[in-house]
């Protein structure tokens, strides 16, 4: 070998495969303002649509008159439910098995509900038109408090469901009831509580909030009357699902529907569902024969497209007196708003909330969830979390802290005592899941050592004494959170959306010169798939990541996939990518054996090609194999080098992590200061550590926002009082704390590369860490639980109610 021969390290480095902190290739265009988003799309003759929305939370719509609007120059059409009825689209099915009004049909059920769609030659004319549409409302009594929705005399919200005693998920108990979902063994759980030395019970609310991606929901629909084809460019997290839904409800053959998600500016669950804007833009395009654009503004996004959370969780834990948990009982009142438009896998009305036993070895548990209607916007999407997993993690992590307080135990000690042990995996939880792998004790201890947990507790004890002596007005809290996520929906045995199994897919095509393209069924909304997918392929088949182009989001070219949400991209599509790469590798091995004139079994893989066992100088690189694939394949073999894989995962993956938040609160103003936030994540095999870190930073920032102030709040009349970024807490860099990240690696045993997914872990684990810190700070003054969000005035209110101003 001469000096020019690259070393193994150089060959490895050139690939920029898994484990490499490869810079994000998509950032070249994003940081230079060259992204291509829906609103950048301008088609010849394109029209603009916008909504007339209801000022009332509940009202009968007596009449809608668009005559004056049609006189506005540029206004071409005013579409109402009556118009949509002519094409049978006044209502649309939801992903949760309910139906939802596209435009107000007889009544409105939440503030800012879509009432009429004005189509005009430009955005200004559309808005001028909106202001001229006359709608006569007769206000009706509203139901805002979820705890009053099932009162016997509560107003009837969904008149369309009159007489329907069974919904998509079983019997309905009340006219505002949607479903009851129960899991676990009630009798055994009740018995455990009867026997328990110690029990706790607390109603823990996770308030309504909103994913609020930077780019709002939007689309352009263009119907070609000659070809009978509908093209839809939209902000979709799951473009193939949108195509199928459109085919089913608009009765257009699926091959004549082209759905394209261009660059998407954040999703966080907000862009999974189908919204009235999409339907109206499509109908308007079919009616006018011109492309129609619909772009939501911020207020519309916050108040009308899918919210998240709004779970009210009555939580009970049974335990021995020395702190071994013996049972968990949870009842959830789930406020779904006016229509059940949750974006969960179809058979899971409360998502995977039954992960609520968390990281702990509960011998028995029982869960029941009642879904109800109120006069609020529909939704209930997974805001940067797997389906209802954030709610579950908050419930159990708050519950464990409350139990620790009652037992007089340290919250970290209580967790260590109850963790599922490493040797118990695969672990079958009391509520039906099979946890794939974990090493919770190691992660927890690493966290405690990294932050000097014992030292922090000492400091806290000293501060508490100083506070009681009147020497300081600051209190200090430590928020411990140890979460287990359940992601990667999901195995066809238990997950589907509208009957479509939740597999994902990849097609890899290598070109003669050793470069290639990978098309994947997911859709990045900021996760960096163009970077990381190429890294998986680089490691699997030895082609540098820079030579692999990743394409997603075009249903005409990408293989069918279920999209990106619930941290499913890496667990499901990541596996499909590895499996497609392995098919390519198998064919490549046959070609290499033929060219090297040896038996396949005499070859071994070596970084970027094959070599003959025992003859390390006899090699054939993958690049050369690509060339050979197009001119000299073995007799009888088809030329070319490409493969497709559809991956149906055998199980979910279960990422976990140990977080801690150190916080000081000034009791006089309620102003808090996050002194330190440490996040240890275990997401199995790490594909790109830099992207993981970025994901964790982003998710923690959202968790910080949610726990410390971000909410969708309604007044008693049903008006949204947090409908803009002035009042809906969206932290800037100034408010956002510094994040310390760390990791352990416990690979998933069933995933081809052992990866588990990480995008949502920080949101799931972060919220309880912040909330536990606030609650821990106040606990020595006698409180057990303070509801989120913990903004300044509520902290002050808590301090006041605990007598600190006496």
């Amino acid at each position, binding site marked *: 070998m001469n000096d020019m021969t690259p070393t193994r390290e150089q060959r490895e480095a050139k690939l920029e495969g898994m484990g490499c902190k490869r810079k994000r290739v998509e950032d070249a265009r994003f940081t230079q303002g060259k992204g291509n988003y829906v609103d950048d799309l301008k088609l010849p003759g394109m029209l603009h649509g*916008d909504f007339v929305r209801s000022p009332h939370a509940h009202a009968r719509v007596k009449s809608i008159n668009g005559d004056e609007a049609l006189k506005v120059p540029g206004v071409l059409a005013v579409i109402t439910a009556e118009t949509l009825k002519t094409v049978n689209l006044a209502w649309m099915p939801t992903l949760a098995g309910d139906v939802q009004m596209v435009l107000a049909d007889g009544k409105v059920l939440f503030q800012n509900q879509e009432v009429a769609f004005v189509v005009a030659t430009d*955005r*200004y004319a*559309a*808005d*001028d038109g909106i*202001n001229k549409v006359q709608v006569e409302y007769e206000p009706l009594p509203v139901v805002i408090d979820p705890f009053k929705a099932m009162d016997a005399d509560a107003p009837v919200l969904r008149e369309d469901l009159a007489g329907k005693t069974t919904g998509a998920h079983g019997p309905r108990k009340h006219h505002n009831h949607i479903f009851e979902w129960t899991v676990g063994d009630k009798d055994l759980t009740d018995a455990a509580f009867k026997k328990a030395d110690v029990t706790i019970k607390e109603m823990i609310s996770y308030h309504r909030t909103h994913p609020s991606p930077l780019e709002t929901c939007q689309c352009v629909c263009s119907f070609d009357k000659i070809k009978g084809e509908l093209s839809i460019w939209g902000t979709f997290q799951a473009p193939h699902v949108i195509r199928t839904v459109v085919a089913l409800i608009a009765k257009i053959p699926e091959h004549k529907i082209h759905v394209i998600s261009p660059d998407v500016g954040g999703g966080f669950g907000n862009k999974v569902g189908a919204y009235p804007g999409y339907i109206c833009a499509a109908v308007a395009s079919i009616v006018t024969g011109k492309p129609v654009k619909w772009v939501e*503004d*911020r*207020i519309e996004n916050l108040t009308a497209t899918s919210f998240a959370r709004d779970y009210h969780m009555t939580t009970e834990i049974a335990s021995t007196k020395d702190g071994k948990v013996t049972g968990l009982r949870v009842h959830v009142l789930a406020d779904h708003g006016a229509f059940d438009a949750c974006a969960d896998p179809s058979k899971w009305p409360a998502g995977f909330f039954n992960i609520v036993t968390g990281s702990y070895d509960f011998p028995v548990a029982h869960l029941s969830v009642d879904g109800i209607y109120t006069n609020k916007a529909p939704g209930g999407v997974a805001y940067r979390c797997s389906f209802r997993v954030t709610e579950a993690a908050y419930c159990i992590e708050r519950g464990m802290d409350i139990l620790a307080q009652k037992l007089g135990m340290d919250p970290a000690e209580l967790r260590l005592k109850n963790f599922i042990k490493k040797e118990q995996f695969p672990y079958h939880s009391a509520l039906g899941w099979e946890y794939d792998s974990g090493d919770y004790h190691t992660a927890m201890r690493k966290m405690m050592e990294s932050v000097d947990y014992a030292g922090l507790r000492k400091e806290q004890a000293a501060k508490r004494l100083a506070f009681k002596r009147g020497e300081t007005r600051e209190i200090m809290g430590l928020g411990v959170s140890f979460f287990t996520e359940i992601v990667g929906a999901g195995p066809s045995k238990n997950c589907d959306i509208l009957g479509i199994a939740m597999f994902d897919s990849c097609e890899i095509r290598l070109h003669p010169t050793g470069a290639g393209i990978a098309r994947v069924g997911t859709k990045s909304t900021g996760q960096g798939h163009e970077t990381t997918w190429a890294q998986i392929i680089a490691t699997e088949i030895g082609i540098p990541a820079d030579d692999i182009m990743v394409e997603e989001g075009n249903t005409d070219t990408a293989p069918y996939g279920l999209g990106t949400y619930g941290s499913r991209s890496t667990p499901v599509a990541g596996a499909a990518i590895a499996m497609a790469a392995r098919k390519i590798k198998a064919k490549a091995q046959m070609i290499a054996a033929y060219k090297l004139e040896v038996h396949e079994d005499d070859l071994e893989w070596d970084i970027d090609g094959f070599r003959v066992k025992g003859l390390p100088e006899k090699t054939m690189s993958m690049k050369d194999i690509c060339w050979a694939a197009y001119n000299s394949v073995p007799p009888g073999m088809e030329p070319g080098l490409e493969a497709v894989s559809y991956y149906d995962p055998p199980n979910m993956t279960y990422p976990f992590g140990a977080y801690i938040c150190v916080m000081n609160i000034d009791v*006089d*103003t*309620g*102003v808090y200061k996050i002194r330190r936030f440490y996040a240890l994540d275990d997401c199995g095999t790490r594909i790109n550590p830099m992207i993981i870190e970025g994901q964790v930073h982003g998710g923690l920032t959202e968790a910080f926002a949610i726990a410390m*102030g971000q909410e969708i*709040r309604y007044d008693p009349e049903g008006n949204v*009082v*947090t409908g803009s970024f*002035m*009042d809906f*807490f*969206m*932290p*800037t860099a*100034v*408010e956002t704390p510094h994040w310390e990240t760390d990791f352990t690696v416990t690979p998933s045993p069933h995933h081809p590369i052992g990866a588990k997914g990480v995008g949502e872990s920080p949101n799931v684990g972060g919220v309880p860490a912040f909330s536990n810190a606030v609650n821990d700070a106040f606990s020595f003054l006698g409180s057990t639980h303070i509801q989120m969000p913990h*903004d*300044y*005035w509520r902290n*002050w*209110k808590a301090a006041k109610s605990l007598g600190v101003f006496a």
Partner: protein
Amino acid sequence: MIPGPFSYHRPATVADAVKLLSTLGDEARPLAGGHSLLPMMKLRLATPDHLVDLHGIGTLKGIRRDGNKVVIGAMTTQHELLASDEIAKSLPILHETALLIADPQVRYRGTLGGNVANGDPGNDMPALMLTLGASYRLEGSGGGRDIAASEFYQGAYFTALEPGEILTAISIPVPAAGAGYAYEKLKRKIGDYATAAAAVVLTMSGGKVASCAIGLTNLHETPLLATDAAKAVMGTSLDDAALKKAAAAAVAIMSPAADARGPVEYRKHVGGIMVMRALTRAAARAK
């Protein structure tokens, strides 16, 4: 979030602006930085038929010393205040306050004149102007007049401006040498209006308060001058009791609205705390 139709005018002189405003009447609005008016127009809560943009009028810009006063043109931006040596030297409290207004992008565009003339109780500069004893120059079709800032504010978005009048300059007496100052603002995040804020300018003599003015932001439908609170600390060394007395006197005149920043009780409570903190910090700065 799309404004209605309007006509746009860009006069080059104050006289032309005044003439336009008086001719066009109620349906015309002067446009300064636009940070209050444009969002209202996008929400169609304001639907003026005419916007009279003041950016073309060169004489409305600039900061100059005029004897014992600093005179600031109404179209001077918050950023220009921050960049001014004269402000840093003579009126550092303006510097401190401007830094607490929104973010750099807003401060590049937002003007002092717009901030004080709009009558928005959430704006920070009006309370400061009361505290400093500033006066405003108003120009209308009938000529010009000067009005004390303390006489200017009548209610939320209601001011002494007559129809067709514009505020052209702010004149601020330079505080006595050695005066201490502080603007304490509690807000939820960058870009937010104050949950409560207090401005203090005081002088100390022999460890006692010799003069004091206290202004309050966003704690009433107009900015407030807390005269009783200021009286309560005169002659004291700003001990705990004096601070508490001042806070109580200030709280007594507050009547904030309940909003997402907190209930009335909280906003008044932290208003008192802002007063105490501003007094303490101002005293520490006094020479």
